């Protein structure tokens, strides 16, 4: 049962597998995102209160959930690398970080664009916005720590510890920010929660989320391959693979 796991942790096998899997993630992701974009931007009716402005949620919500998911994936990969000393797991964690950081930036940017017409302000110290911003700082810290080591193995293990510490801290940050805001007498109407969402608006959202997940998987495959190329640049299998093909 563990055989595939061990096989996958060998760089040549992982390099090939990631390359083979990539199109299976990439093209469905593109198709799903295109269909969902059509469904969300054209087919779904405008919101009775927010008019067309709500449509940015088709980018905002999937990137928000991805920004957290990627962080957890990164921490799990880092923990696997730390516990079983699998180098490839560290490569996966390293590949996750910039993608997750960009999803976080995208979330903040789309939230800000949505906030301008809806709340009349670019930025609101809302618990969700604030915790998303802190998440971005965590990503940046992780990447900064990784970049500050010359030795890849030390960078891997040090940043893995940070990722694990961070993932323990993420719920604390999240709830502290929520309580902080509720203590400060936040706005009485919760700004982001819709009472319920009509199915004509919902299915594009779910499809878009799935598309984002697959897109992340495709990008991750690419990034893992380039991480492997970087790490194994002196390995003989690599020159054989590259020259042979």
């Amino acid at each position, binding site marked *: 049962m563990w055989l595939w796991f061990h096989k996958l942790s060998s760089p040549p096998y992982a390099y090939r597998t990631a390359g083979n899997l990539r199109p299976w993630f990439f093209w469905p992701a593109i198709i799903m995102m295109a269909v969902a974009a059509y469904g969300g931007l054209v087919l779904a009716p405008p919101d009775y209160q927010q008019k067309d402005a709500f449509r940015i949620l088709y980018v905002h919500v999937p990137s928000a959930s991805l920004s957290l998911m990627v962080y957890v994936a990164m921490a799990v990969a880092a923990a696997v690398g*730390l516990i079983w000393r699998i180098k490839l797991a560290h490569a996966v964690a390293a590949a996750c970080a910039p993608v997750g950081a960009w999803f976080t930036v995208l979330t903040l940017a789309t939230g800000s664009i949505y906030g301008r017409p809806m709340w009349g302000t670019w930025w609101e110290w809302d618990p969700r916005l604030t915790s998303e911003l*802190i998440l971005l*700082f*965590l990503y*940046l*810290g992780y990447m*900064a*720590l990784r970049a*500050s*080591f010359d*030795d890849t193995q*030390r960078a891997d*293990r*040090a940043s893995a*510890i*940070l990722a*694990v*510490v*961070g993932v*323990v*801290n993420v719920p*604390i*940050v999240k709830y*502290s*920010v929520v*309580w*902080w805001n509720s*203590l400060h007498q936040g706005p009485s109407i919760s700004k982001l929660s819709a009472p319920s969402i009509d199915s004509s608006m919902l299915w594009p959202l779910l499809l878009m989320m799935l598309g984002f997940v697959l897109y992340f998987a495709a990008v991750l495959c690419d990034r893992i391959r380039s991480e492997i190329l970087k790490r194994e640049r002196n390995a003989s299998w690599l020159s054989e693979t590259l020259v042979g093909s």
Partner: protein
Amino acid sequence: MSAPGLLALTKLVVARDLRLAVRHWDQVAQPLIFFLIVTTLFPLAISPALDDLRKIAPGIVWVAAMLASLLALDSLFRPDVEDGTMEQWTLSGQPLSVMLFAKTMTHWLLSGLPLVIISPVVGTALGLPSSVWAVLALSLALGTGSLSLLGAVGAALTVAVRRGSVLLALLVLPLEMPVLIFGARAVDLAMQGESVLGPLNLLAAMLLLFASLGPIAMAAAMRISVEG
């Protein structure tokens, strides 16, 4: 020679660090002076009127305490790593997590506790009524412990990095934000005459969590830093 027990080990580490601190008294005083200077900046930048300052005083004291604790962290492990003491510790066969925990606690005695003691003075200068002194000191006592423990993990991670102090701030400050939130909130509630049990309990809970998990992360990080 028999190996010392955990308690004896802790005592040895604490006694050594205290002795070192007494002999370099100026280094211990620096974060404290920094704390005082930062709190002086706010009246200069915002307004000298105590009524204005009173509203933001809890935040000022807490942010200044956080920065002072961050400044003190750089000297927590660096001298010992540079002169090879830490390497001997990792090889000593004694639990590294216990030793680092003892070291962090001593560090708190030297950098956190002075802030706690001086906080009523700073608070008064910023217009805080004497009724909140106790809460201010208590919130700082609980909170700076968490700051020291979280900071020690970051310090252990970055101790081998050249010019690691900016990086340390990048890593540690986002993780410390919950402590800031509840610490400043407790003082704020005390000023409004409301119950402060909620934030103080949460501060204590965080202190316990970081005290139990922090040393493990510190030891793992320190091994990576020393190995290279």
